[in-house]
């Protein structure tokens, strides 16, 4: 694959205005497929979830999954769309082995949802409103594995293997209008838009929203318009960009590639392009051709979907608070600065933080534990933080620190015990004997012993060199196996040594 010439990004933006468009496919997490009762399950054995309908065998007849319709309507509403009073399925005809039916059941001129809007906020605080043209329902294709040739890529494969488990899984395809005026933010707009969609479908509970499992997939359209011109450039469509970071990189790459090509007097071919995660480049796929004449026609085997206004309103009432609004509310409630709040959001800890704080923990303490020690342990174990401990346990732990039963150091040991399944924080404190020694008696005994064994230190403290007390405090904390409040120990050391402080 010849490496494409790239223009410096800033220069590309001086000469051209990027125009974007996105198609995001969301796989719904229904129990069954869109048109048949086969399980909608990721990771089953190959071709174990198929039937005559999703394999397109003679006699197979599709039946619409009510839950998929409800999920699609709710997603449409959450994107600010109007919901069609009358909506039909259509066959999109093409020959490719990812579908055994030789058509995809999709929607053409009567999508279930249309005319939406989604406002996203970039890191700079800039707000961008993305107009949603439509959100339509369709079924997913099977999974092809290309064998031989260049390392599993479609180019140069010797043959392909097909698993139709995914064939027929319900999808909602969300199509934006042209996004203009993005300028240098264009790549970030792509990333943030897809992140916002992902967050919405997660909050709605309509998709597992795991990009790494292909639950949310993005096709990015990019074209460049020369400055001063009002004629749109030819666009390319980069397919299946499957991580947020890749969306950003792919848009940026296409801007730089197209700019170099146009500037050198070349032309852009309208084509699909493949994104290569490893090398961070796109490569030419199939140009638009006769094969893109899909001959859509109404699916004769499915009757129209005509959701009553009452049903739509019933579904609207089930919508959760929009994720962006929720974030704003929580950040204000918790009084976090942007950096602190981003830390929580990026670690996917909003839900557990909210629950921990609702259980009585101060916001900063909750943040400190969830993004600190708990996140560290979760990372080390390769699991998610919320799978280690519950918000209630963390709130109880913080309570024990606040009331002086535990120091941070002891609390870390208690946390270990809780994670190991030894019970609630209080139970672990009791069973491991970890509470801070709050009785001064044993502390004074340990301090006197430490001072007696370090007469030179004692002398220094008496002379007012209080920083020398560190050595004694260390020895006492060691003798108490950490179960003492260091501040109280310091106070007592100075007192027992007869310091001037």
């Amino acid at each position, binding site marked *: 694959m010849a490496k494409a010439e790239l223009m410096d990004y800033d220069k590309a933006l001086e000469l051209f205005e990027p125009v974007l468009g996105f198609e995001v496919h969301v796989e719904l997490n*229904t*129990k*069954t497929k869109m048109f*048949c*009762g*086969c*399980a909608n399950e990721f990771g089953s*054995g*190959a*071709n*174990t*979830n*198929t*039937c*005559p309908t999703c*394999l397109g*065998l003679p006699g197979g007849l599709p*039946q*619409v*999954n*009510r*839950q*998929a*319709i409800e999920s699609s309507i709710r997603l449409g509403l959450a994107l600010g769309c109007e919901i069609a009073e*009358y909506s*039909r399925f259509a066959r999109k*005809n093409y020959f*490719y*082995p990812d579908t*055994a039916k030789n058509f995809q059941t999709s929607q053409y001129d009567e999508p279930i949802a249309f005319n939406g809007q989604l406002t996203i906020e970039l890191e700079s605080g800039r707000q961008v409103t993305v107009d949603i043209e439509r959100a339509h329902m369709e079924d997913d294709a099977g999974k092809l*594995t*290309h064998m*031989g*040739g260049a390392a599993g890529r*479609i*180019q*140069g*494969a*010797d*043959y*392909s*293997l*097909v*698993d*139709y488990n995914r064939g027929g899984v319900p999808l909602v395809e969300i199509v934006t209008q042209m996004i203009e005026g993005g300028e240098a933010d264009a790549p970030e707009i792509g990333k943030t838009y897809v992140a916002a969609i992902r967050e919405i479908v997660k909050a709605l509970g309509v998709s597992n929203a795991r990009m790494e499992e292909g639950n949310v997939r993005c096709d990015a359209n990019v074209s460049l318009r020369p400055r001063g011109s009002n004629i749109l450039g030819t666009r390319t469509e980069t397919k299946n960009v499957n991580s947020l970071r890749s969306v950003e990189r792919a848009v940026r790459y296409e801007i730089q590639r197209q700019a170099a090509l146009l500037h050198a007097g070349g032309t852009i071919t309208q084509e699909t392009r493949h994104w290569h995660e490893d090398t961070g480049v796109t*490569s030419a*796929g*199939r140009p638009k051709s*006769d*094969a893109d*004449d899909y*001959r859509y026609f*109404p699916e*004769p085997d*499915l*009757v*129209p*979907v*005509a*959701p009553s206004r009452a049903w739509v309103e019933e579904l609207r009432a089930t919508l959760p608070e929009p994720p962006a609004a929720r974030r704003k509310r929580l950040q204000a409630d918790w009084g976090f600065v942007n950096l602190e709040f981003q830390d929580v959001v990026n670690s996917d800890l909003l839900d557990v933080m909210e629950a921990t704080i609702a259980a009585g923990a101060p916001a900063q303490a909750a943040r400190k534990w969830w993004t600190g020690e708990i996140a560290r342990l979760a990372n080390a174990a390769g699991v998610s933080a919320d799978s280690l401990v519950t918000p209630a346990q963390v709130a109880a732990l913080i309570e024990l620190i606040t009331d002086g039963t535990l120091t941070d150091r002891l609390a870390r040991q208690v946390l270990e015990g809780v994670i190991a399944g030894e019970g609630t924080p209080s139970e672990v404190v009791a069973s491991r004997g970890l509470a801070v020694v709050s009785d001064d008696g044993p502390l004074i005994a340990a301090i006197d012993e430490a001072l007696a064994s370090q007469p030179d230190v004692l002398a220094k403290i008496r002379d007012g060199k209080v920083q020398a007390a560190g050595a004694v405090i260390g020895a006492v904390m060691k003798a108490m196996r950490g179960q003492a409040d260091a501040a109280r120990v310091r106070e007592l050391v100075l007192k027992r040594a007869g310091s001037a402080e």
Partner: protein
Amino acid sequence: MSEITAEQVAHLANLARIDLSSAEIDRLTIELGQIVDSVAKVAEVATPDVPATSHPMPLTNVFRDDVVVPSLTVDQALSGAPDRAGDKFRVPAILDEE
């Protein structure tokens, strides 16, 4: 008369992966033209208050509950496949090296 041309029929045949001889294309051009003309006759009597009909039955919202039913076994699913590799369908490579 309809405006169906032999080129259109050849194009459609290509899209549908049907290998037609030129004699067949000529015959189908005439036949498809006649069908289009017949449909056009119907359009003459359809007034604007008659909406386009894609489904003859006055039915909407026919749904099924989201309940899993047993699927085919892998062997049943693969029984009609021209070729298989393990539990997967094996198909020829699709795109050539570019």
